[in-house]
């Protein structure tokens, strides 16, 4: 089938969306942007295609009456097993890469011992990997680096000690290799991996018989990458011809339109910039404004405040919600924010009240950008990382009500995919229209 893909290369994460020719979303994928944009684009695309397969499985299984009510579980099992297969494969890759990287004067005479130690470490990691992917297991991250890295440290230290090798000898090889592996998109043959996942008993209790056919049928559908559109701040670095690149403004506008067709105004507060966009009834951008050269009041400002207060980024919003009396914070300049913050704390202001003030000041800044872009029309859609912050959303609602009156405010849980969604839509329109 024809697949239309949008890839949004952001400064921190890269997102991909796969669509069919009827503008139906088939899959979404996300990965960290790394230093290597090519890989980030390839990985996010692959993730979105995996998600697409799962969608196709679901479509196949939904037609079987006796599986009614069980499809979610089956798909979840299938995905877990698939992830496990993929993880094992990447562990293999990491192992081979590590062994290949045993070079240099430090290792002379000890090569054999290091190889043996590495083999032992990876044997244990393979053995324990199953536990990471059993049903209900909580993984702290879905990125290979995070999962493999934590275990490697633990297991590696023991193995090295037992072998009488300095751990940093092992660590050195690992550090070099993990970057290589991470920057190598997982090998292809997604279909083969799904089949192996299926063999791991995705169905359980004899259901395998029933699901194998529809799954195989879904796997047999070829996923042709008919058209790919790249967007996002890193888009110029994508290895795409120029006509396959669209600005994030256009993609954001169209993506928001696809999610909420009545959208006329969009606010996106990302890590590095804030955008106010006006679109018409067809999702065509009529006007846009971005924060000027000064990045005051963008998502990054919150990160800075979190560091300054020694808190996690996601803890800021909930704490601010506890405030009863917001302190007025006048500077959204990251340079001054720290000083103003310390000044307020020294004056005995409560942390939650200061935070509430900070959230308000960010939103005030966003309101100015919206004002610059021509105000807030109905409906209004808020996207970007800050849209997940309840304190920011609360202030935004308040200020929109005060300045523009009643407006329907849309916030989608998938808002992070807005740009990629717009890109995929452009891809469909480039071919179908």
């Amino acid at each position, binding site marked *: 089938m024809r697949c239309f893909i949008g890839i949004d290369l952001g400064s921190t994460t890269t997102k991909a969306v796969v669509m069919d020719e009827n503008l139906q979303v088939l899959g979404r994928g996300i990965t960290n942007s790394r230093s290597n944009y090519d890989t980030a684009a390839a990985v996010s695309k692959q993730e979105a295609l995996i998600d697409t397969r799962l969608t196709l499985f679901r479509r196949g299984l939904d037609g079987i009456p006796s599986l009614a009510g069980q499809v979610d579980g089956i798909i979840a099992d299938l995905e877990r097993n698939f992830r496990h297969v993929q993880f094992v494969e990447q562990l293999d890759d990491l192992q081979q890469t590590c062994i290949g990287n045993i070079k240099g004067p430090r290792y002379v005479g000890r090569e054999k011992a290091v190889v043996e130690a590495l083999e032992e470490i990876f044997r244990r990691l393979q053995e324990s990997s199953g536990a990471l992917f059993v049903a209900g297991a909580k993984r702290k991250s879905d990125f290979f680096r995070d999962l493999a890295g934590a275990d490697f440290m633990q297991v590696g230290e023991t193995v090295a000690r037992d072998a009488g090798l300095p751990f940093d000898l092992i660590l050195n090889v690992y550090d070099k290799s993990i970057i290589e592996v991470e920057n190598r998109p997982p090998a292809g043959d997604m279909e083969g991996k799904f089949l192996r996942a299926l063999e791991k008993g995705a169905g359980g209790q004899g259901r395998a018989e029933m699901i194998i056919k529809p799954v195989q049928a879904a796997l047999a559908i070829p996923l042709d990458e008919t058209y790919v559109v790249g967007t996002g701040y890193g888009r110029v670095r994508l290895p795409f011809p120029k006509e396959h690149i669209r600005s994030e403004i256009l993609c954001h506008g169209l993506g928001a339109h696809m999610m909420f067709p009545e959208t006329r105004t969009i606010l996106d507060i990302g890590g590095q910039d804030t955008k106010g966009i006006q679109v018409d009834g067809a999702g065509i951008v009529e006007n846009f404004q971005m924060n*000027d*050269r*000064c990045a*005051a009041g963008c998502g990054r400002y919150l990160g800075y405040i979190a560091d300054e207060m020694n808190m996690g980024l996601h803890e800021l919003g909930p704490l601010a919600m506890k405030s009863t009396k917001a302190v*007025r*914070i*006048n*500077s959204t300049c990251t340079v*001054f924010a720290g*000083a*103003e913050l*310390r*000044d*307020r704390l*020294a004056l005995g202001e409560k942390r939650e009240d200061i935070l509430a003030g900070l959230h308000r000041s960010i939103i*005030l*800044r966003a*309101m*100015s*950008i919206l*004002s*610059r872009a021509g105000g807030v029309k109905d409906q209004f859609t808020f996207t970007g990382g800050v849209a997940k912050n309840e304190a920011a959303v609360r202030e935004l609602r308040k*200020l929109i009500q005060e*300045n523009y009156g009643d407006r329907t405010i849309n916030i989608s849980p998938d808002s992070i995919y807005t740009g990629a969604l717009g890109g995929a839509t452009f891809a469909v329109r480039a071919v179908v229209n």
Partner: protein
Amino acid sequence: MSSTAEIVAQCQALYEDLDFTAARAWKAAKPGRKVVGFLPVYVPLEIIHAAGCLPLGIFGGGDSLEVIHGDAYYQSYICRIPRSTIELGVTKRLDFVDGMLFPFVCDVIRNLSGIWKMMFPNVWTKFFDTPQNFDATIGGSYYMKELDELREGLEKLVGHKVTDDDLRRSITLYNENRRLVREVYAFRAAKPWQAPTSEVYLLMRAGLMMDVAEHNQMLKDYMAAADKEDRPKRDNVRVAIYGSFCEQPPLNLIKSIEMAGCYVVEDDYALINRFLMSDVPTEGNPIEGLAMTYIKASVETSCKYVPKEEDKGMYHVQRVRETGAEGVIYATPSFCDPALLDRPMICHRLTEANIPYIAFKYAENSGQMQPIREQAGTFADSIKLWS
């Protein structure tokens, strides 16, 4: 009779009221009354007053106004006062103001006059240029024509003539105002503990939002009350503050400087009521009187050209001497072209005259006072140490 605390409280209420309730009430009190707003640094209030209008000082939004729409009109490298002024306009806080005067300060305020014309086409808006040639027959005669044009504009606004006698009456009141203002300043320089700048400042700001006769009475009352009260004298150093003639600092900043151990004995805050240093003649052609006083006897400030190199900054040196200031705090709004471009030249003069100084920047909504207190405190300590 009122105490200083009562007078100051009244002033502070006026200063903090961004809905301009008092000015609205003044206008509503009689049908046909008009209010004419003006920005820093200088316009001849006498002419506005003579036309029967209330001249209303618009000095930005201070530190309590949240600026949303104003920011939409300005890049990050432009000072704050035009933003908050636009915010006041867009939020209809100035919807009762019939005319707006934008005096020559810098290109930002100059351009704001054009923005105002486009945003508020029903308001009589004028950029008020003052001459930079100080020859009576050149700059002076040009300025007289400018003042006539201003008078004509006001006549059109109010729908009646503004006679020379009207002007003379207003000049008399403003001459008195200037004398009283100078007296308060002199009193503060003599006994700064009796008239703290945080009070004097409010007293002066409030005066730009009320009828001049009322302010004259208030100045007298304040002087009388301040003279009677016995307040403790502290071991503070005496400083002059320059560079703050347009966008005003938050009141907290003034308080912070005082709390850090400084008596402010001279400043260029809200300079308009000291801009003319002598009385304007009430005999003869009043327009000529206003023009020539500007030409011959107005203060040196950054928005005026200083024709002779040797005179540059000398006004500041002289005022420091006259008021017995021991040092200068050159405090300027961020991105203030006039004050910041002048700063090296003024500071060179201060150095030549062995007057110590420090310099820092603020915005009308500056929130962090700790660095201000630290700098002013260190400055005060260093002066004490060396004197």
